[in-house]
């Protein structure tokens, strides 16, 4: 295992990727200037892609880089959405802005704290499939608690936030687009810097061989909980932004299994354990869902199921994994991919 990054390889390939990333970021950041995102259909399209992609990026960190298949992401998403909704509705923080940064940060902190509390018993005792089952169970319990929250959470009705809109705010999708894009960049940056640092090395070591990682002096539990909590925080902030779009979060829609399985498919389709994989996957999966719904109304979950199966049968390492097999281009795209 190399502990010192090999600087001699930082050359053309990294530069090219930095330029590509910059162009993509600038393109999406300036899109509202030459495309009407609030009226055109691609505004809402990209907004949804960003939301799912953020959750996917978080799942990528915990499952792709650390090798812990968490099946509780929808619970953290819902938890984030409800943190925003409840703090807003009961006006606890007295901030009351539109896209309130305080609420968004708190919506990251709350799922992260829950993830740490839950992760301590689960991650210290359970491995592999059993950990997946445990997170699934925790997710279900969290959603049941919100369903039975009575007056505080609004039960199955959720909270109607339109009644408590801040004054002078107009619902404009352009704001949603920019905020979700900013959060998407933030999420990607967090995962990128975490995985390219020493932490990332530790996570990958845990993924490859837990016992060996522990014998090399890595505190396995600490790093596992860390990646689990960061993934939960990212799902939470995505839920928070989504809550500003929904304005009526109900347990039925924010704890929906789609927020677990779709990000999962996106990551696997794009390539697990790569930084661009989740975004490629998010774009493709949502394109399929979007046009599937348009042309074969109601059939798009069936199409998604077929795509999921085909991807798993034909290229289980995802599109980014496919790129690795090609001789030249794309090989550098999988940052943090296990090196031979």
């Amino acid at each position: 295992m190399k502990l010192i990054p090999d600087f001699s390889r930082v050359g053309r390939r990294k530069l090219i990727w930095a330029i590509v990333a910059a162009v993509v970021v600038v393109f999406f950041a300036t899109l509202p200037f030459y495309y009407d995102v609030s009226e055109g259909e691609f505004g809402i399209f990209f907004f949804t892609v960003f939301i799912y992609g953020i959750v996917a990026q978080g799942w990528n960190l915990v499952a792709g880089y650390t090798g812990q298949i968490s099946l509780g992401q929808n619970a953290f998403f819902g938890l984030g959405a409800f943190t925003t909704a409840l703090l807003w509705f009961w006006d606890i923080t007295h901030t009351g802005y539109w896209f309130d940064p305080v609420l968004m940060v708190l919506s990251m902190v709350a799922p992260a704290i829950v993830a740490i509390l839950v992760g301590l018993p689960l991650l210290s005792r359970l491995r592999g499939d059993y950990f997946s089952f445990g997170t699934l169970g925790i997710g279900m319990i969290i959603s049941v608690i919100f369903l039975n929250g009575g007056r505080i959470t609004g039960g199955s009705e959720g909270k109607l936030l339109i009644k408590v809109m801040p004054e002078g705010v107009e619902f404009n999708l352009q704001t949603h687009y920019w905020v979700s894009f900013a959060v998407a960049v933030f999420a990607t940056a967090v995962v990128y810097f975490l995985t390219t640092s020493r932490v990332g090395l530790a996570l990958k070591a845990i993924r490859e061989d837990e016992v060996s990682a522990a014998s090399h002096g890595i505190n396995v539990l600490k790093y596992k909980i860390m990646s689990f909590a960061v993934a939960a925080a990212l799902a939470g902030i995505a839920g928070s932004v989504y809550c500003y779009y929904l304005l009526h979060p109900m347990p039925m829609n924010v704890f929906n299994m789609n927020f677990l399985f779709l990000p999962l498919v996106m990551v696997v389709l794009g390539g697990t354990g790569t930084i661009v994989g989740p975004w490629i996957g998010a774009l493709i999966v949502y394109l399929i869902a979007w046009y599937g719904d348009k042309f074969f109304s109601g059939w798009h979950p069936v199409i998604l199921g077929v795509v999921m199966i085909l991807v798993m049968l034909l290229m289980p390492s995802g599109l980014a994994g496919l790129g690795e097999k090609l001789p030249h281009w794309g090989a550098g795209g999988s940052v943090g991919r296990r090196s031979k």
Partner: protein
Amino acid sequence: MTSFIQVVINGIMLGSMYGIAAAGLSLIFGTMRVIYLAQGTTIVFFAFVTYWLFVKAGIDPYLCLLIVVPLAFLVGLFLFYTFFRKAAALEDKNVSLLIAVGLMYLIENAMLKVWSANPRGLDIPYADATIAGWGLRVAWVRVALLGLAVLSAFVVYLFLKRTRLGTAVRAAAEDMEATTLQGINSTWVCAISFAVGIGLAGVAGVGMATVYSFDYQFGFTFAIKALIALSLGGIGNVFGALAGGLILGVIENLTAYYISISWIEAASYGVFILVLIFLPQGLFGRREIVKKV
């Protein structure tokens, strides 16, 4: 006291459904380490098949068993050879998990589109017949369901213990590599255990159709319940899985009666997590199996 016994009895009847599903999952998971998350949806599918056989052809649901179970067996073979043959051999179990999730999406939404979202239930002439005594009442169809569960668990048990193929399945569950070295065709063994697992889903589907009204999205929750039953009973033990299902049913009914119907899910998932953490081998399982996972 009478109401308590009645609640427990109802729980056992409910749990027998979970038991059959869990036994199927146990076979599949035991040999291939594949979590077949689409089990519940498959059960709903066979419940629909039973429903249509009853409505269109007027076949008694219990006679349907003779059609549905062999059909389910064939469907299982088909599913295995098309989807799981390669994936089951991979070290990375996410692949097979995701194929199962994909299948679940596919079957569930296809059922929604083709057969609509209306809940269905069979209108069996003898559905109201009950056994009553000591202040307790149990519907005959539910007793039949329990009987079906016990019978199918017993048949699977005999298959595993008394036949050559069953012995091969048990050996594969113990150590797949060594089994292959003994000259046993491991693909065929996996196919058989998968098909038997889906066959059990067929039995559960018929049972579901006779007792409950069901709709297309019942499957996912049901698969999770089967998983809980499996973890309770312990992997690699058909009767354990059945007992796990019965216990889960009793827990659910007791929660519904003494606390509230809306906390059922929380109770069963809470039990699930506690069992996973403190008793990973289940109540009737062996410790070594857990260590291997």
